[in-house]
């Protein structure tokens, strides 16, 4: 749950740009918005306040009839996805208006949320970057994790010891990353560093709120 209004975007890939001092800055390019507001949820009717926004326009026949009616009521184009932003106050927002990259500015700090790339069940070598053993000369310890703790004392394996396991495609948030550039013309955001997911993945960009609870 985020209590500030953000934006939904598509990760386009990574490159780098030069800043004013000539430093090379690695950036991830996100095509963000414009996201039409489809519904405003209010405490008296829905039990909570939120903005429901659409993302990724699709032809009308791509969504089912009840959904078509939902978009028609708001007077906006049909979209592939509907996402909510939970808010403290919904004042100043109007159904049918659009959220754009204009709300962000260069230098601002944001959180970016997306699904990380799932890799399935991985061994310790790949999952935690353990070194591997010798591959030949009679060695049998090719990709084994090695020791997982001491003997009689403590007599158990400590919790959190790095072992093999699954790397799921779960939702991950990268916190406090800087916006390097905002391209309002092409609806692009350039954020510093990497973000979860592969190219083409859907991500949620939310401004970092400063100073504790709102």
């Amino acid at each position, binding site marked *: 749950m985020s209590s500030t209004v953000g934006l939904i975007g598509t990760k*386009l*890939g990574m*490159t*780098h*740009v*030069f800043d004013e001092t*000539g430093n*090379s800055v690695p950036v991830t*390019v996100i*095509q963000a918005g414009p996201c039409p507001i489809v519904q405003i949820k209010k405490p008296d009717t829905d039990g909570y306040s939120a903005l429901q926004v659409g993302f990724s326009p699709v032809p009308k026949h791509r969504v089912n009839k009840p959904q078509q009616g939902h978009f028609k009521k708001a007077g906006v184009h049909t979209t592939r996805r509907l996402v909510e932003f939970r808010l403290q106050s919904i004042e100043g927002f109007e159904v049918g208006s659009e959220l754009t990259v204009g709300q962000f500015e260069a230098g601002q700090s944001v959180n970016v949320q997306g699904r990380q790339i799932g890799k399935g069940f991985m061994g310790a070598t790949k999952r935690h970057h353990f070194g591997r053993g010798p591959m030949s000369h009679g060695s049998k310890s090719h990709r084994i994790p090695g020791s997982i703790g001491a003997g009689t004392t403590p007599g158990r394996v400590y919790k959190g010891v790095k072992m093999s396991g699954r790397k799921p495609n779960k939702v991950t948030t990268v916190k406090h990353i800087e916006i390097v550039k905002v*391209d309002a013309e*092409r609806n*692009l955001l*350039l954020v510093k560093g990497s973000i979860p997911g592969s*190219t*083409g993945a859907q991500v949620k960009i939310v401004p970092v709120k400063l100073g504790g609870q709102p």
Partner: protein
Amino acid sequence: MSQQLLKEITQGQIKTDVPDMSSGDTVAVHAKIVEGGKERVQVFEGIVIKLQGGGISQTVTVRKIFQGVGVERTFLIHSPRVAKFVLKRKGAVRRARIYYFRSRSGKSARIREDRR
């Protein structure tokens, strides 16, 4: 589509006045360095060992012998920290990356001029 957009983003920062360099060429790189709070241009002249990457991330590795020690520096071609590249001499080599050149010295470390 997305790759095209990435190219367009960096288009504005790509230099258009870079000479056509290749391995074996002698180039003078005018690099801006900050020294004691002041900025000045330092010229690094040597032989191009390799060109790597493309677009905005393209780099050039230049090698020279300084006080009897081989020195190699890699420059981002499109970096604003590099004022300019001056092509001094075209060299005729048969490889794209002349790593073998590192083990050469004296007479064997000569490169024939490319007169094409």
